[in-house]
Every structure is written in C-alpha cells, then in structure tokens.
C-alpha cells in the first residue's frame, strides 16, 4: 500500500495534465484565439488611400443578368457590353436596346461614330452594324494571339495582341495592313513587354493613340504609323505610379484628356494627368475587396467613369464629387 502512493500521484498528475492540455488545445485553436501572423506582410499601407485623393463617388451599380462580362464600350449615350457570348446595347436610361448572340466570345469592343461595332474575338476581329449583325470578319491571326483591346483612329482599327506583344493595324474592311511591336529606338525604352493577358490601347479626345506597356509600367503615345512619340513611365509601389507585374491593365480618357487607369493586384482606378502625376482616385481597392480582376473602364458623356466589375458582374458608375 505504501508503495502505491507515488504511483497514484503520478497518475493523477498526468490525468490533470492531459485534461488541461486538451482544454487549452481546444480553446486556443478556436477562431480568433490564435496568435497573429508572425510572417505578416502588410500590403495594406499600399492599399490605403488618402481620403482627400478620392474625388469620385460610386453613384450606381448596374447588375448584369449575364454570367461572364467580357468587355465594355461607350459611345453617344449608349453602353455596349459584351458578356457571355452576346453583345448588348444599353441606353442611358438602363434599358436594353439591343441584345444579340455573337459568333464567339468577344474579348474587347470598340464603337465607331457611325454606330458600327468592332469586336475582338480572341484571334480575329468582327465588324458589326448597329443592330449587331455581322458585316465583316478579319482573317484569323496565326499562332498564339489574343486581341485584348481594340480602338478606332481615323480609317484604321488598332488591335492589341497580348501574346504576340504587338499592335495590329486593320483598315475599315478589317484587312490587316500593318503591325508594330513598339520597339521604336527612342532612348532605352523597350518594345511592348506584356507579361500577362492585359494589353490595352485607346484614343484620346485629341485623336492620339495611346498604348500600355505594362511590363515597364508605362503609357506610350504612338503615331498612327506606330512610331513612339512620347511616353509616361511611373513605377511605384504607392499611388504615385503603377506597381508590380503588368499595370495598368485598362485605361481610357476623360473628356479633357486625363487618363483613367485601372490596375490589377491592388485593384484600383485612378485619374492621372497628362503629365503623369496621379490626380485623384476614382475607386480605391477596398471597393473591390475580394476581387481578382481589374475592371474595364469607359467614360460616359457626362464624364462619369463606368467600370465593368468582372468579379461582381456589374457595371459600377463613379461620378466626380
């Protein structure tokens, strides 16, 4: 009997330890009881925006009844939306004026003054009339090509081919007449570096052709014949420029010629002066929480920014404050 006491003591002690361990293990692993992340990498400071810079407010959200929005364009009070495999024309009162199934999945859109619509279909272009009927089709591009952006300037149609890292020039009959890769020989600027499927071009109100060079965080102005005229290059982890791999993703112009740029990674939309300084923020990244894709942007006649939010499947309208 005497010799049993230490044994019982040890057993009781162990039992106590076992129970304590199980209870502490249970409680310490409940959500919210775990320690903070020792490897925290705080990118929030790059996300946060000085409220004074936000000079736009989100006024409306237009929910789309399609699954996969693909591209947006705007001309004369009408929104052209490519979603799923159809093309829609939406009036300024948000009534649908046209809805038509396209022969494929569009990747980008542009609308001419006369109402004709040019849709990039991955490896070729399609010209549609204002009712969405196909008028002409370009030849299918050889090799790996994906037209991610298209714009009309004068008699030419410019299409950005991201995998090809080139800009294709078509005439109005959709015949390929030229292409250029951006290597202009001006200073040490490299040709188009397109590290992912985002390569965008647009024409500003002064009829200048601007093309992104996302690999070096630049917006470049080209002559219609494809010679580099000028460029803006801003690399920065902060709001001051574009950061990381391949920004800006989309851009467009305000009526007075300022840039509206849309970035991925830390998703945000901001307005940049023609000189390259960030002027204001249209939408900080918290408005795109959980999102993964940079929204496509267009500007309407009133100077509001319309952002096609791919993740939320809606058009979001930002008005200047």
């Amino acid at each position, binding site marked *: 009997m005497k010799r049993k006491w230490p044994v019982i003591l040890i057993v009781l002690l162990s039992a106590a330890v076992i129970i304590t361990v199980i209870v502490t293990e249970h409680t310490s692993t409940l959500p919210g009881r775990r320690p903070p992340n020792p490897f925290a990498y705080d990118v929030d400071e790059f996300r946060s925006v000085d409220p004074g810079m936000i000079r736009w407010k989100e006024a*409306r959200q*237009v*929910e789309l*009844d399609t699954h996969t929005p693909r591209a947006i364009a705007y001309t004369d*009070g009408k929104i052209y939306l490519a979603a799923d495999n159809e093309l*829609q024309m939406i009036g300024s*009162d*948000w*009534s649908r004026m046209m809805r038509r199934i396209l022969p494929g999945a569009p990747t980008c859109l542009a609308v001419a003054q006369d109402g004709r619509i040019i849709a990039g279909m991955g490896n070729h272009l399609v010209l549609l009339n204002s009712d969405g009927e196909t008028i002409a089709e370009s030849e299918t591009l050889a090799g790996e090509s994906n037209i991610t952006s298209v714009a009309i300037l004068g008699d030419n149609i410019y299409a950005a081919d991201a995998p090809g890292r080139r800009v294709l020039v078509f005439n109005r009959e959709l015949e390929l007449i030229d292409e250029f890769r951006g290597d202009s020989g001006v200073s040490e600027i490299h040709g188009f570096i397109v590290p992912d499927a985002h390569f965008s071009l647009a024409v500003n109100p002064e009829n200048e052709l601007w093309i992104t060079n996302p690999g070096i965080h630049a917006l470049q102005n080209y002559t219609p014949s494809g010679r580099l005229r000028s460029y803006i290059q801003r690399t920065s982890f902060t709001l001051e420029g574009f950061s990381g791999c391949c920004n800006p993703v989309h851009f467009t112009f305000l009526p007075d010629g300022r840039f509206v740029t849309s970035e991925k990674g830390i998703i945000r939309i901001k307005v940049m002066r023609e000189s390259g300084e960030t002027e204001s923020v249209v939408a900080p990244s918290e408005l795109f929480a959980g999102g993964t894709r940079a929204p496509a942007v267009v500007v309407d006649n009133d100077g509001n920014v319309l952002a096609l939010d791919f993740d939320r499947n809606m058009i979001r309208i930002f008005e200047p404050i």
Partner: protein
Amino acid sequence: MNIGDKIKIAKQSATVAGAFCIVISLLLLLNFLQMQSADPLDSEVMETLVQRLALEPGNEQLKKEIRQFDLLARKAYFTSLWQVRTGGMLLLFAAIILVGALRIYYSLIDKIEKPDKEEETNDITSRALSRRWILAGTGILIAIALLATFTVSDPLERYLSDLPPPTESGDHVERITITDPDTRPTDTRPTPAPSPEDPETEEPGTKEEDPEEAPADPPVTDLAPATPTAPSFPGATTIRQNHNAIRGPWSNGVVFHENLPMEWDGESGTNILWKVPVPLHAFSSPVIWGDRLFLTGADDRERKVFCFNRHSGELLWEASADNIPGSPATPPRTTPDTGLGAPSATTDGIGVYAIFGTGDIIALDMEGNRLWARNLGVPDNHYGHSSSLISYGEKLFVQYDDLDQGRILSLNVLTGETIWDIKRESNVSWASPILANVNGSYQLVAKGNPIVAGYDIETGRELWSVSAMAGEVGPSPAFGGGFVFAANEYATMAAINPETGTVVWEDNFYLPEVASPVYGNGYVFIATTYAVLACMDAKTGEQLWEYDADDIFYSSPVVAGNRLYVTDISGNTYIFETGGEPNLLVKNSLGEEVYTTPAFADGRIYIRGEDYLYCIGN
C-alpha cells in the same frame, strides 16, 4: 552473471537513460522556448535596420550589417530546427532504452510468484460500487451538458430578430437592373375574350352601357381570338422612350431624352420647328408615342382627340367622343379655368385613351378608330374633373375622386371593362395618379384629400396610405430617390417612404397649388403659384434655393438628365441645372400663355400654348 548483477545493470542503465531523457527534454524545452520568444525570422532588429536603410538608401555599411544579421538569423533558425530534430531522435532512443531497462528490471525483481490475496466477497460490493459510479458518471455527464446549456446563449436568433444586418458599405449606391423590353409581364396575361354576358355582369355603375356599343368593339373582339398572342403592351423601356402620359413616362415628371433644345424664341421663331393652331381649346397636355402626338380639346358641344405627326405638325386625324351611352345630355357645369378638357390623354402605342369632364372615357386606336367608349358617371366636381389618365399593360387607371366619394378604377384598355374599382378615403381632388416602381414592382400612387396612397395595380388593394393633404388638391405626386413626394398649398410638402408608408420629412414653406413637384438627381423641385421655384434636398427636405420667376407656374416642372425645365404661364421656360445651387442656364420665351406641361421627345420639346402647339428643336 547472476540475477543480482542483471538487476543491477538494468537498474543502472534505466537510471542513466532516465537522466539522459530528462536532460534532452529540458534542452528541447529550452530550445522551444527560445524559438517561441525570439523568432529570428521575425526580428525587430532586422526590421529597424531595413527601415533605416529606407531612409538612407546609399548606406553601404548598413547594407553590410543587414546581410550579416540576415545570415546569422537564418543560420540560427536552421540550427535550431536541426537541434529539435536531433533532440527528438535522441529522446526517442533514450526512452526506448529506459523503458526496456525498466521492463527488464521489474520482470527480474518480480519473478517471485505471489498468490492472490483478494477476497471472494469483493465481487458483490464492487458491483454495487460500480453501479453507483456508473450512475454518478452519467449524472456528471448530464450535469455538464446542462451546465453548458446555461453558459452558452444562442446569439443567432437575437441577430436574426433584432439587429439590422450591418451593411458593410454605408455609402448610398443606387442599384439598377437593366430593364428589358423582352420581359414584359403582360405577355402571359390571359387574353380578354369578351363573352356576351360580360357587359351585364358589370357593376351597377356601368350597367347603362348600351348594347349598341358592342359593334364598336369589333377591332378588339376580332383581334383577341384571331391572334392569341394579343397586342403586346410596351415594357418599361419603350415607355421611357416615349411620353405616354402627362409629365412623361409614369406621369412622374422625369423624361429620358438626349439633345434637348436649350434655346428658342417664339417671337422670332428661333428653333421653333413648327407651330400649328390648336383645333379645340383645353388645358390638357400633349402626349407622344413614336412619331405621333395626341391632344384633347373640349367645349360644351364637343369633345375631341387630335393626332399630329410630331415631325411635321400635320394633323393626321381627329376623333369625337360622342354617342357614348350614359353621357349626359347637358355637360356638367365647370369653371373656365378647368373646363371639360382638363385631363390629359394617355397612350400605349396600341391605343390612345382620353377622359373628359363629362365622365366620358374613350379609347381609340392609333389611326383614330374607336376601340370602345363608356361613361363612368358624371363627376360631381365644382371646378371640373381634371385627373389625367395613365396606363400600364392592359390596365388603364382612372382617379375619380369627386364630391360624392373617392374612387379609383382600373379598366381593361382593350375592352373598357372594369378590372377593379375601389372606394377610398378621399374627398374631391384634381391630382393625377402616377406609377412608382417600388422594389421592382409598380404601384399606383394617387393623391387625394387628405390621403396619399399606393395601390396594388393588379387588385387595387391599398398598400399604404398617409393622411397629410388638405385643401383643394391639385398637384400630383412625384416619385424618386425611394420616396413619394406629395405637396399641396395649405397643406404640406411630405416625403413618404412607400415601403413603410411613413412620412420621412415634411416642410411647408413653399407649396404648389397647381404644378406638381418633381424629383431629379437627389433634389425635389416645386413650382408655386406665387412665381417661386424652390429646390429641396430630397433626402432631408432642407431648402436649398429658390428662384423668383416672372410669372406664376401652372405647368409642372420636368427633369431631363441634369436639366430642369419649367414654364410659367407667360410662356417663359426656365432651364436649370439640377443641383444644390440655383443655376439658371437659360430662359426662353414662347410669347404665348402656357398652362400645360410640355411633352418631350428625342431632341424635341412640344408645348401646348393657349392657341398654338409648338415643336421646338435645334
């Protein structure tokens, strides 16, 4: 080696192994604590060094320091990893030896076989004890479960019942869905197939309907069975593109057209595209469908509907509202400032519908052929009936408040049959009903005296009602920004939430007598009969500005985009920018008195003056 030696060896090796175990365990524990307290990878020293470098990017010395520290830290980290792994192996090894030695030791000293000393009787008592403890154990378990019940409350129900769901974004973002002309609710509507008994089964008020009228119906009766799909009624999109009722789509004072003319002059003819004399005077306003514009006119002898080509001003046809069963032989007495033609017509592209002060209501097709006509009973109205019509789908809505009773009817636009007819708590009124899209479904909002109420358009059921009006109720309600706005002289200006039927704010500084309020882009505008145009914040009712016009307002203001159009009775149209500041963009004179509300089309404004109908455009 005898058994004593074996025991000795086993004992010694157990002791050594045990001590070894303890040492290794302590070392491991130490290592563990060290790793816990100072994770070299998350070191503050490193952080400060890097921060310093950010300030002085060129400091080579600092860089060198960082590199050294980094190397050290990583070395330490991987060394401690190695230590843990090796320590664990050693511990395991030592533990195996310890256990083995102990087993041998005990098996050696326990070789002596001892007889069992337990008493036989133990069994019964131990069984009793077991039972007790099994019961006790069960009791403890249940006690723990019950205790747990009381220590934990279920907040989910509280959340679901009490808390309003915390909205993550506090900003007010308007949600829009794209309206689609293809998804008309009326498509699935059962086609009205009038059977011979139908007119007889109507309520007493319409009993007088003459069977002779039946021949007037053929276009409809033929149409319905012949084409089972029936005429499809315009959806919201199409209605928006037209000006189907007074004050535009839904009678709401908001139009959706672009490129509207900004400047004109009636005297010099600047931007007056055409101007035609009004064939028959009335105070009704023009309505537009496609390229047709409709007007009504009335006097004691005749009541007529006119159709114009809105592009050229050519009179396409006119139709008389005569030979209507139940129509009074002598028209009721009215005052000159109302007359028998005060209500405006409405159209849906299939027909045009007009009502007159006699209680006659007539439906014509787009070519002027009569579809049906009936008399709703002569209104008992000391000024004259003036509520305008509005239709949606197959329903035509008539606000018919007179001195006798408050009443609202819905008629079938194809047959004129009553769909529903409700009495309401209202005195005589002169306001017109509007349609408001509340949470995706339309309701009819009608202002009376004293109530402002919303009605289910399908059944006429009153959805909500607010008693806020007084006096002689003339202005119609307006809807926008989620609120119904109702204002009347001698009463109040009230913003009503139609979802709850509550007054959100009230104000009575500026009140209209004739012209209806209008909502646009967050503001409400009121045009008064004392020549003041006032603007308020639609959310709060805060008065933002007022503008003193040349003359008083009878014509209702209309919002198009970010412009406000309002015309005084001298014929001056003021165009404001909708906003918190009075920003008069331009003032245009027509040179003729205007009591009606203009109609808008793409790039065009149509104004009915006292004598002429004007088309204004660039």
